[in-house]
């Protein structure tokens, strides 16, 4: 067994793989947050709860309706996205005229409600979700063993992130979105239905969170607490990447996942805090975030 920097290669690459997987979840979730923040200027604290809802709906589909993983991948983001649209229409849209902090407080309250309801129903211990057979097993790459499902998670989230980035930055629909971020009144004067776009954008961001939840279900246990502590780390990722930047959140998500994985190998006690320390450093040097622009 060869060693790099005194750590066996199996352990190093194993942790890097875990880091990449964590990074793909950070990237997916921070992408959803960045999309929502870019257009609505609201920090969606409910994101963690919606991620958890995605995992739970997948679990319920599997156990109550007998529908497997691939069905869930298609249905769950749509279902949870619809709840997001309802939330936006009924509650968030009333807050746009006020200070943006009220949006944060509202979504925080909603997160408390959703998490409380699920905890009431399912308790705090996790529920199992079985992996789809087509993706189970793994292959031996020589320097490490790569489980197939992990590889699928990384590839799927990379593809989703890049497709989202492409739609927002390079297509006509994306340009309407970006224009509406800068000057909604003017864009609406041109005849584009801005409120409907905002609602659908929020729904899309929520759907991204739910998609991450479905993908997380086989690896992490499905529990009501799964979103709660993850969301704070994702906030830190978004702050580091720059709050409105799409590519920034994708790159920092993957990058920070890798950094966290490396820290776990060389200095495990700091692995929880390393992302926050990086955030503090970035804020001192470049307050707008690595890829953000000063607003």
């Amino acid at each position: 067994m060869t060693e790099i920097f005194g750590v066996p290669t199996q352990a190093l690459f194993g942790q890097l793989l875990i880091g990449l997987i964590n990074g793909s979840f950070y990237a997916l979730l921070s992408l959803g947050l960045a999309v929502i923040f870019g257009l609505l200027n609201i920090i969606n604290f409910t994101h963690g709860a919606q991620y958890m809802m995605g995992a739970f709906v997948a679990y319920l589909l599997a156990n109550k309706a007998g529908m497997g993983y691939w069905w869930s991948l298609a249905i769950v983001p749509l279902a949870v996205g619809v709840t997001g649209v309802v939330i936006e229409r009924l509650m968030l849209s009333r807050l746009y005229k006020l200070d943006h902090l009220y949006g944060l407080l509202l979504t925080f309250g909603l997160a408390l409600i959703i998490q409380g309801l699920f905890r009431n129903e399912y308790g705090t211990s996790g529920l199992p979700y079985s992996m789809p057979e087509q993706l189970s097993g793994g292959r031996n790459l020589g320097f490490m063993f790569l489980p197939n499902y992990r590889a699928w998670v990384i590839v799927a989230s990379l593809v989703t992130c890049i497709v989202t980035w492409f739609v927002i930055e390079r297509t006509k629909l994306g340009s309407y979105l970006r224009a509406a971020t800068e000057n909604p009144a003017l864009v609406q004067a041109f005849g584009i239905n801005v409120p409907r776009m905002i609602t659908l954008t929020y729904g899309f961001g929520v759907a991204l969170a739910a998609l991450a939840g479905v993908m997380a279900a086989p690896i992490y246990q499905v529990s009501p607490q799964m979103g709660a502590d993850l969301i704070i780390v994702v906030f830190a990722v978004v702050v580091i990447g720059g709050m409105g930047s799409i590519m920034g959140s994708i790159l920092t998500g993957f990058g920070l996942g890798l950094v966290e994985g490396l820290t776990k190998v060389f200095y495990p006690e700091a692995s929880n805090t390393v992302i926050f320390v990086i955030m503090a450093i970035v804020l001192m040097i470049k307050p707008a975030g690595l890829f953000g622009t000063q607003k």
Partner: protein
Amino acid sequence: MAAFFLLAPLAVYPVFLMKAMCFALFACAFNLLIGFGGLLSFGHAMFLGTAGYAAAHAAKVWAFPPEFAILFGTAAAAGLGLVTGLLAIRRQGIYFAMITLALSQMVYFFYLQAAFTHGEDGIQAVPRGTLFGFIDLANVWAMYFTVFTIFLAGFVLIYRVIHSPFGQVLKAIRENEQRAISLGYDINRYKLLAYVLSATLAGLAGATKALVFQLASLTDAHWSMSGEVVLMTLLGGLGTVFGPVAGAFIIISLETYLAQLGAWVTIVQGIIFVICVLTFRRGVIGELGNWLKKPL
């Protein structure tokens, strides 16, 4: 209000009232920052937790008498406030909230692993000691009036700060920062001072609470505690003087008397949050003040 707290322990369980007063002071300190400074800090739990751990450690391991333990805890929170304030003041609005949240999470993880906090167990059996050498704080009444005095002192301090020239400048900065800058005020210094003051008083609340319950635990440093203080202040009324006290009282009563319902407490808190933000933005005391047509 002073009369209420003086007479209430004859009817209601004193420890419950002491808990309510500590959280009321915490909420008042938080309100100083958001109601009058316009800065939403989502990380105030780190001050409560730091002061609690510092005071508990000082009282138990270093055998400080209670007045010095509380002072030490408050000083620790003030120091943390200075350091985090220097970092966080650079940004405003939502960014400020997120930065304080992440900093508080960093402090939480530090306490989770540090040896002196004993992790999940917390620092238990903190001795209350004898105040000034002759008042034995194991007596519930002595402790009650000590906590009452501390709470009143903190409250009066906040009241004086709010109604001082410093407080007026703070309100000006909240309303229109650009204009305050153009008038020549160094807004960063004012904001930092408000932040450190808020942190210090939150620390005072935390240190006192550690002595009341004789326990310093991780819950005091977790971000859900930050969320609770936001809820208390929002419910009571942002920017009112008595609002946070009322809000703290209501939420603590809710938690204590609904505790058997388990997870429903979280759900009720969330519902209160949502209702307050959507329709009840002035809060209980704010609505009362609006009805009585005078500021409360």
